């Protein structure tokens, strides 16, 4: 019988997206191991996988002195085997999930993962919210791994102007999963002569966080911002809210009021409360109290959004505000005092102009071939408006001051009509089927965007509102509406939506 040695390599798998630091991290680990007397083997699969796809870098480290004593060369593997990986490093939370699926993480694995999200295209492209929850990944990682170090390494890296590899490398050092000293890790970074200072800072953050076994959520500030006293002008609204509506609904109502005062003034916010009062009355009649006033709450939310629709006045106003100027500076990471020129990509069409005109004039403009021809010439191309230059700013600033036009505009009358019939439908539904009414209130979520996007949303909304009437008889109307709403948000070609309508036998409508 051969005498089998128990010497074994340290196996490290790095799961990352191509071109996002896995290669750099691998190189550091390789250099480090080499400097510490280890035989290091590294493989990866570059190529098209590198173009933003998910990919695995695999490293095996073998103590050279053991091999020397044995007088033999170790045989190192080129792919990780489930259950045989000592250290797994995932550069993003979904990739951490992928590592778990592949079985790389087991009881003796040191698992280091950044819990930030880099959304996959399937999550980003949905018309609603396609994001996956990572709670299960977090739970299973904690359950499965021997040691699980997880925090937002991307934020840590950005906070010191470094890249995620440095924080991951620091976390690896902090995890003490490798038999090397901190100084050796740092020396490896220093020896590269590339962005050494920022990488060392990132390393430090990773090291400290790993040492403290911090779970990232702890360092998010959950404290709500201190609130100042509200202005006198809005106290009447707030008092009305507090007197007339249950506390469960206050959060959304307050946000709604804020939005509508900003959109059109106190009177318009009052109208919001008037409308909501009717829904709340229906809610009370239908036993809403036992359902935590779901109907009032949902309507409070979506009525505000419906009433504060996006027209060119609104856009122009928002684009020229001081807080918006502060925001774009911070978003593009402008240095203090740096000059930033901003141009907006606008594409106003005749429709957008006409809808802000007084209703009759607007209708005329839309139906007049002559005007359409002229406007086709004027508005056929997208326009770039520079809001940081005087011409552009003054143009948008003055359009933004035209909210007085709104009350008599074509769009306003259309929206009023739609909102009223929506509220009546909700009201009627509430008497028979509470959850259906709640679902109907939430249908406003479909109406968003501009141009074709808005038109498509509106048409899906109308379609489902039509279905509501006939769905009542089925007994599970709320479920049907929820399914249709989800389907309408799935793809813009309407394939899923049409399929769902078919499946539910509502296609003839």
């Amino acid at each position, binding site marked *: 019988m051969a005498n089998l040695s128990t010497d074994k390599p340290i196996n490290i798998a790095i799961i990352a997206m191509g071109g996002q630091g896995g290669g750099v991290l691998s190189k550091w680990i390789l250099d480090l191991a080499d400097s510490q007397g280890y035989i290091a083997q590294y493989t990866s699969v570059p190529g098209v996988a590198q173009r933003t796809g998910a990919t695995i870098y695999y490293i095996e480290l073998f103590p050279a002195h053991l091999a020397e004593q044995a007088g033999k060369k170790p045989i190192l593997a080129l792919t990780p085997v489930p259950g045989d990986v000592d250290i797994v490093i995932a550069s993003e939370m979904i990739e951490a999930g992928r590592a778990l699926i592949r079985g790389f993480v087991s009881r003796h694995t040191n698992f280091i993962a950044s819990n930030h999200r880099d959304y996959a295209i399937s999550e980003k492209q949905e018309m609603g919210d396609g994001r996956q929850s990572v709670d299960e990944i977090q739970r299973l990682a904690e359950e499965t791994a021997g040691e699980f170090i997880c925090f937002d390494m991307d934020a840590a890296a950005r906070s010191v102007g470094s890249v995620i590899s440095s924080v991951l490398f620091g976390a690896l050092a902090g995890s003490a999963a490798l038999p090397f000293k901190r100084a050796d890790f740092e020396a490896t970074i220093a020896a590269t002569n590339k962005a050494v200072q920022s990488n060392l800072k990132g390393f430090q953050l990773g090291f400290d966080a790993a040492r403290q076994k911090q779970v990232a959520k702890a360092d998010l500030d959950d404290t709500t911002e201190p609130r100042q006293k509200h202005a006198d002008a809005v106290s009447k609204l707030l008092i009305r809210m507090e007197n007339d509506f249950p506390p469960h609904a206050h959060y959304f109502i307050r*946000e709604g009021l804020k939005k509508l005062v900003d959109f059109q003034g106190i009177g318009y916010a009052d109208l919001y409360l008037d409308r909501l009062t009717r829904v709340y009355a229906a809610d009370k009649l239908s036993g809403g109290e036992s359902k935590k006033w779901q109907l009032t709450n949902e309507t409070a939310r979506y009525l505000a959004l419906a009433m504060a629709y996006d027209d060119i006045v609104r856009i122009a106003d928002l684009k020229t505000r001081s807080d918006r100027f502060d925001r774009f500076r911070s978003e593009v990471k402008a240095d203090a005092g740096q000059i930033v020129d901003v141009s*907006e990509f606008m594409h106003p069409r005749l429709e957008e102009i006409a809808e802000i005109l007084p209703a009759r004039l607007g209708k005329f403009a839309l139906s007049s071939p002559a005007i359409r021809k002229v406007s086709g010439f004027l508005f056929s191309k997208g326009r770039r408006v520079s809001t940081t230059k005087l011409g552009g*700013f003054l143009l948008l600033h003055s359009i933004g001051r035209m909210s007085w036009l709104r009350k008599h505009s074509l769009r306003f009358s259309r929206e009023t009509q739609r909102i009223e019939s929506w509220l009546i439908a909700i009201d009627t539904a509430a008497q028979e089927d509470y959850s259906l009414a709640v679902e109907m209130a939430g249908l406003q979520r479909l109406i968003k965007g501009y141009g074709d996007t808005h038109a498509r949303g509106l048409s899906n909304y109308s379609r489902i509102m039509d279905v509501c009437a006939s769905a009542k008889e089925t007994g599970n109307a709320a479920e049907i509406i929820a399914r249709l709403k989800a389907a309408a948000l799935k793809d813009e070609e309407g394939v899923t939506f049409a399929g769902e309508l078919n499946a539910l036998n509502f296609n003839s409508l």
Partner: protein
Amino acid sequence: MAERSFAKEVETLNLGLGDEFKGEGILAVTKALLQSGVSYVGGYQGAPISHLMDVLADAEDILLGLGIHFEASASEAAAAAMLAASVNYPLRGAVTWKSTVGTNVASDALASVSSSGVMGGALIIVGEDYGEGSSIMQERSHAFAMKSQMWLLDPRPNLTSITDMVEKGFELSEASSTPVMLELRIRACHVHGSFKTKDNVRPSFKLRDAMENPVRDYDRVVLPPSNFVHEKEKVEQRWPAAIEFIRSHKLNEFFGGHVAQHGIIVQGGLYNTLMRALAILGLADHYGETDIPIYCLNVTYPLLSDEVAGFCIDKKSILIVEEGQPEYLEQAICTILRREDISTKVHGKDMLPMAGEYTGQVVCEGLRKFFTQHAPDLIKTTAVSTFSLPEDSQQVLIDTVPNRPSGFCTGCPERPIFTAMKLVQRQLGNIHVSCDIGCHLFSILPPFNIGNTTMGYGLGWSGASAFNTETSQRTISIMGDGGFWHNGLTSGVGNAVFNKNDNILVIVDNGYSAATGGQDILSSRAENSKKSTKNPISKAIAGLGIKWQRTVVTYDIGAMMRTLTEAMTTGEKGPKVIIAESECMLNRERREKPIRNKRIADGKRVVRSRFGVDSDTCTGDHACIRLSGCPSLTIKDNPDPLREDPVAYVNNDCVGCGVCGEVSHAAVLCPSFYRADLIYNPTLRDRLFSKFRNLVIRSLQRRVDKKHANYSFGDM
């Protein structure tokens, strides 16, 4: 200039006798070529052997010093034909490409050189792109070796074995007058390890010697009657010579115990995987010690009947670990045993999967089956199982974790072409789109979902050539500049002109063979002292007889849409070509970013553009994402507590290509996009203008702020 520079690594090619080379497998192969005294090297780039080509390109000075001619061949066929130099002369040559796709292209010339036979060693290094991360159809190069009778080497995946096999490969080639294929799996190509080097060898017989003293030998030309003689030679002379060489040089290896009832025959390239699986099962240690007899085939074609028979004769059963299908080795071994009347039970594809990559886990499972059936005592006590999650947890994760397919890079100039096509389809209805090979093939993935078939490199247009009939809906074919020069010029454009095609070709001209690592090609705009670049595609196709051609800058989506629509609807008959040009952003940024940073550091005025989305006008519909798919265009929580859907957001990777702004214009999307021009080292004029503007703007904003304060709800 290629995506990666190997200027530093190239120095390792000068290492001498007894030095230690540390680095990537494919570079080690390059070093081994120099140690073998090659006279010429050619090839076509593609994963996993792109780096070999890039290194050679960067090592041109060293190659010249050794009298070696290196050629970045126009295609694998051109590279394979290069081996003709070894037919009449004692010149060693090596060619390389991605397999099996490259071998397909090369097989015409390979068949010819295999028939002629070679005098100088001819080595074909194929990067076997099989298994995880592969971008091509899953096939084996083995079949090519068998059909043309080339020997196939499959060395153990460590640098010593690989480099040794390069040198032995040349000797084997010369000893048997047969070209030799060296197969390297993708991970072996990229494995980082070390080996002891030797001095480089200058070929004693030079290319010039051959050119100045040409030798003609009619017997070596593939034409009757020589071709019939060649076939006889193959089986009567070259085969026995190869067998003799392989046996006497012990190219195949025996490991483990010598007396046991059950053994394993393994392809050399899978040896490390096998040993890891045995170690996990407790049957071997990490130095390769084991009681299980192992016959390691570093040469997988031809097989040595007597070695196989000798290994099997005292065994009750053997397991063949052979990746891919059909199971050529298993079939051949069964034939050998049957002929020798050896009754050893043969296992292989009955215990290991017929298809798919043989990872450690897969081999582990196969071994477990084998030993459980034949020697249960062996693993009962020691075996640990490989790990897997409970089934329900696994399912939860599978439902949670989305696929992350490859996609266009941030700022990629190819993306807007497909945005335009998507928008044009909305007006003209769906269009049959024939794709090619290259980054542009990502168009078939979300969010574009454009493309029907892909038939091969440069075959985009010929892939739609059947659709040449009277219709109101033309087809669109796509071809990259790499594919165009590879063979699309003739098989696509020439074919369309000759057959009076009435459809459309879009040539994506980004200045490089981008998908394979950014190598220069004929139409590259880059300066290249060693190659002839700047030969425009437009001239080439005009020369072929294309009358309707347009050149459009890809980033101009409006122009792209208009041009596509015109091509789709024009009454003009005949082939239509749209050249969509813009430089590969990956290469452009690599070149320009350091220059820009230096200019900023030097105090020069620099304007850097990037894009952003206003979260308070974004309604979270993500139409922009569905029309762009840029990695830097992502989503984040909606800051408006009333809205449920996340808003679009441009992260800091944005390179300011402008596609998202163009998209919002062309698709009449929404007014949320803005372009920010950040000015570094502003001039006095910049500063004065900005100061004046800010004065006015801030004062107007203050008035609005004051009004808002009067209606404040007290939030910060």
